[in-house]
Structure formats: C-alpha cells, structure tokens
C-alpha cells in the first residue's frame, strides 16, 4: 500500500495518527460521501470539522491511545458523516448550511413535533422552540450554545431531532403537570392484603426481585414496556427493530421464566412447592405491583449526560 499523506503533510500509513493527522484519501472519500460541496461548504471548512470531530472523541479510544488511519476510517464509517458535517456547520453559523438544514429538515421537524404532541398547535410551538435552540439563541455562561454540537453522528440527524423533540415534550409535560419523575409517578403498589401473611409476602417480594435481577436487560425492557407502559407489541417491536411476533414470543417466554424463577426462589427460601404456588397465586396483584416497583427502582448508572462539545 502506498504511503498516504496526512492532513499535517506527513506521509503515514498504518501508524498511529497522533496530533490529529488524518489520511488525505480518507478525507477525500468523506468529502465525496458527505456531499457537502452540494450545499456550499468549503473544503477547508470540511477538513476542519472532520478533524475536530475525530480529535474530540479521539476516535473512541482512550485519551492516551492513538488511532491508526484504518481505525480512523472505521470510526468515520460508523458515523453519519453528511449529517454530522451539516450539524457542525450549522452550529458554527454557516449560512449555507442553515439554508440546507432548513430546506431538508424544517418541514419534517414540524411534522415530527405534531406527531409527538398530537396537536398541530403544540407541535409547531415545540418545533419552533427547538429551532430557536438549534439556532443558538440560548446562552450558557456567556456563550451561544447550540444543541447541534451534541450530535456526534451516531444515527441520523433527523432521528436525533425527533428524539430531542420527544425529550423536550416529555420534560415539558412533566414540568407542566408538576409530576414527579416517571420513575416515581407510577402508581405505587396496592396495600398489602391484610389477609396475606406479611412474611409470605416479604418472601414473595424478595423472590421476585431476585428473579427480575436474573433476567437480562431485554426481558426486563419487554416486561416494563408491555406491563408498565402499556405499549403494544407493535410499538415495542418497532423500537427493538424486530418483528411483532418475535416480541410476543420473547415476552411470553420472559413471563413464564420469571414466574418459574420466582417459584424456585420461594422454594429455595423454605416454602414447599405447593406453598410457593399458593403464595404466588394468592394475590397476583401484589406481585404485579411489586414488579412495577422493582422494575422502576432499578437504576441504570452507566449513562451520564455528556456535555456538548
């Protein structure tokens, strides 16, 4: 393979690209794929944006690691480069980029907002608010902050806009109704049936908690989305990108396995099989409510909002 010249002018191939050097051929390829010239972005602006994106994330490597040109190429091929370049150009205040953004995303943005809110008026209002934010009217610490800077090219720009709209709408809905966070607004479990022995219910709750903890994330998501949120199989299937029948099958299996695991846990706690079945079948609503509490009380601590760059 012939040596390639990096952006810094140093021929490099297969070696760590320290200092933000990017293969020129990769840049050329990304330039063609992004079609940025079609809406008037200058080449040097494109190169600058690509370099900023790569160095800001260090190509998804640790800060001390250096990505080779191949790794750089893999990094950029995993991104929606055209959307990413447009978003960064808009965030930088490029007028041509904004013209292209408006022509391409303005109407879909409004339609998405209308679909999310279920109202033409509310939808347009929500879209206008987000549009104002995107245009950089909000100031943070004296600087104009554009939410488009938080877009890093994972997924489509339109998908990001829809999700942002949905997020704004949910947050606005919760604030306007003075509701508690969704984790806490779900109806609490019904009061314990006084006729049911407390010890038995306590054992049932522990067994259920253990059973849910042993379920994988997908099963718990299915149980929560179906039983807690009341989503349909079709809605869940579209979120997961699988067929509706697959969701049905998985949900049925998750329910069956969870129940069997709860029984097993109850037996492990000292109950006979018959007593465990009676405890499980005595008042299913208790188990149902406990399931809701258990599902909602588990916290995922792996995500942190990354500050917009």
């Amino acid at each position, binding site marked *: 393979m012939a040596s390639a010249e990096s952006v810094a002018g140093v021929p490099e191939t297969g070696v760590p690209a320290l200092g933000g050097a990017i293969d020129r051929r990769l840049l050329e390829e990304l330039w063609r794929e992004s079609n940025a010239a079609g809406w008037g972005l200058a080449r040097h602006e494109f190169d600058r944006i690509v370099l900023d994106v790569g160095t800001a994330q260090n190509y998804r490597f640790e800060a001390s690691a250096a990505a080779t040109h191949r790794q750089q190429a893999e990094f950029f091929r995993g991104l929606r480069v055209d959307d990413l370049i447009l978003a960064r150009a808009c965030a930088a205040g490029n007028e041509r980029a904004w013209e292209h953004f408006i022509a391409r995303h303005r109407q*879909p943005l409004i*339609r*998405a*907002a209308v*679909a*999310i809110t279920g109202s033409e008026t509310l939808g347009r209002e929500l879209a206008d608010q987000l549009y104002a934010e995107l245009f950089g009217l909000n100031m943070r610490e004296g600087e104009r902050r554009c939410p488009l800077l*938080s*877009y*890093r090219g*994972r*997924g*489509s720009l339109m*998908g*990001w806009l*829809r*999700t*942002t*709209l*949905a*997020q704004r*709408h*949910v947050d606005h809905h*919760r604030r306007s109704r003075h509701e508690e*966070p*969704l*984790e*806490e607004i*779900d109806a609490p479990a019904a009061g314990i049936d006084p006729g049911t022995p407390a010890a038995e219910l306590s054992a049932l709750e522990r067994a259920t908690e253990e059973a849910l903890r042993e379920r994988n*994330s*997908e099963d*718990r*998501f299915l*149980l*929560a*989305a179906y039983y*807690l*949120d009341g*989503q349909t199989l079709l*809605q869940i299937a*579209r*979120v997961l*990108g699988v067929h509706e029948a697959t969701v049905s099958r998985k949900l049925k299996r998750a329910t069956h396995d969870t129940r069997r695991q709860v029984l097993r846990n109850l037996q492990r706690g000292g109950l006979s099989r018959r007593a465990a079945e009676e405890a499980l079948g005595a008042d299913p609503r208790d188990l149902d409510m406990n399931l809701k509490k258990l*599902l*909602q*009380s*588990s*916290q*995922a*601590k*792996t*995500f*942190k*909002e*990354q500050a917009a760059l």
Partner: protein
Amino acid sequence: MSATTQHEFHPDPEMLSAFAEQALNERERDEVLEHLAACGRCRQVVALAREAADAEAVQKVVVQPRVWWRSWGLALAPAAVAVTAVAAIYVHVRKTERNAQVAKLEQQRTDEKAPTPPPAAPARPVKPTASESKSDRAGDRQGEREREVRESRQAQEDFVDRFEVEGRRIHTAGEERERDRALESPAPAPPGSEPETDDRTPPEVAMHDEEWRKEAKEAEEERHLYAAEATAPSNLHGSEGGATEANHPVDLSAQQVETRPAPELSPGSLIRLRAGTFSPALTAGSIHLPSGLRAISIAHEGPRMLAIDEAGALFLSENSGTNWETVTTQWTGRAVMVRKDAAANLAAAAPTAAKSEPSRDTSGSGEVSETGTVFALTNDQGQVWWSADGRIWNAK
C-alpha cells in the same frame, strides 16, 4: 432524585435515537436497553420518537407513485368504452334487422288485405298461337299463385315466430286477430282496479304490443262490421246466438278463455309455453293434407281443424288433423286464409249453420262449439266467408 441528577443518568438523545435506528454496537445497545428497562421517561421518549418516525414514513408512502397495477385502470377505460361500443352496435344492428322484418311483414299483410287491383290494360301483345297463349296464361297463373302462396306462408310463419318469442299462445294464424282484439279492447276490469299490464311486462314485449295494436286496429274495422250485423242480445251476452235453442247468458269473461292474458314471462314459463302450445299438429308446416300440398293457413277449435293448402283448397278434420276431408268450394276466388272468430260474431253465421246442420263439436252434442267460435275464410280478394262448422260457408 433531583432533575439534575436524573438528567445526568439519562442517555442523550443521540444514543436513544441511535438505539431506535439500530445504529449502536452490542455493548452500547445493552447499556441503553438496561437503562430503558428501568427508566420510564426514556422509554416514553423512544416510543414517541419512534411514532414520529413511523408517521413520517407513512407520509412518504402516501406520496409515493402509484403501484404498477393501478396504472392499468387507465388502460381499462378504453377497453370498457370499446366493449360498450361493440355492444351498442350489436344491439343497433339487431334492432334494425328486427324493424326491417316487421316492416316486411306489415307490407306482406297489407298486400294480402288490399283488394287485388284490376289488371292493367296490357300492351298489345303479339298475338300468339292459340296453344301457346293458353299454356302461357296457365303458366302465368300458376307462377303467380305459387308466389302468393309463398308470401302468405311466409307471413304466417313470421307471425308464429314472433309470438313464440313473446311466449304467447298462438295456435293458428286465425287466432292472431283474436289476440289483437283482446289487446285493443280488454275485458272489463272491476271498478277501481288497475289494468293489468305493464309493470311486469318487459319492454320488448311492450314494443311488440304496440305493433299488435296497429294490427288490431285493422281487425277492428272487420269487428265493427261483424257487430253491425249481429243481433243485439246475443252480442251483449256473448251467447251462441241462434245456434242453440237455449239462450244461455255467457259472461264476457268467457271470451277471455280464447284470449287469455299473456302470462308472466320467465325462462321456465317460456319454455313450458313453447313446449305446450306449439304441438307439431298445430303448425302449418307439419300438416299433411290429402292434396299433398303444404298448408298455408290453419285454424282449429278443439279437435276440429281447417286448413288451406297451397292450391287454395280447404280441408276439414274432426280429429285434430288425423283424417281430412275436402270442403266443397262455396266461395269465389282462391282461399288464402282461414281463422277462428269469437262468439261476438257468431250471430252472423249461426242461423245458416243451424239451419243446415248441427255442428259436430268436440262433445258431439250437435251444438255449435261452446265457445261460440266461428271460422272465417278469406279469399285472395279479401272477401270473407263465415262458417260455424267448417263445412257450410256463407259470405259476410
């Protein structure tokens, strides 16, 4: 948990969007799924964003060009027009042919009824020899007679064919007049009752009814002549006139036996009518007369049948055409048509018939037939003779 704290633990919109678009690797997907299993807010965000994406996709589908098979609708329209045009042309041609046949039939009937014009003054022919002149005149008469016979037979067959189509009961050419009269002057209906027609009558039948009414008008003239000569009481009651001693009042509905109303048309009834009405013995072409010639006109009353052959000779049968006897010629010219007339006209013929011989009707009682039917014979000059028994004929 404060809002700030919550915000720190939620995946950003890009991650949620990428999750919904299946753009995350397995590790990232599991992390997001783990969060979604516990976070109702993010599940709601993802669900709403997904619904918006589906709505957008539906809108794109709506504005997509039509599928290929729908474009065939444009090609089906000319095809439908072409089929309609062909059907219209076919109907028009059939109608034209039928009108031509009706016109031809009318012309033939007019020719039959019109008195034979006096022969035009022939141009002075070259005087032939005596033998040649005689043979030529005989040949001319024979040819003319054959032509008339053919025309007359064709007219009767056309009538039979027409009435077969209508499902009506036509036995002989002589009964056509009776049917025409029934159409022209139907039986008196009870007060307040609607004349029975036409709601159930197909349009085609109604059209032919118009034709029959035209023909019935012609027959009406003859009927008036009959009525003028008939005696009033017998006409009023439709009795058998002088044919019998007892003057039994006969209700007018008795006449309806002869001219019963057209039955409701249905495929099944049409087939039954055709099968039951047109027996082989009643069609002119299937009668074998002693002269060996074909019958050109027939009429019957019960088993009594009258038939005129192509030569103009009249034959009588008392057993539905099994045996025939020749009727002595009592009229001038050549007989071309025999028909059956209703009882209203019986008075004109009954006295003579009663004086001469009691008619031998179906029952053998020696009376004129109970329906009061007489036969009418028309010669080639349009003159009419009547008979109650088919043997004795009197000029009208």
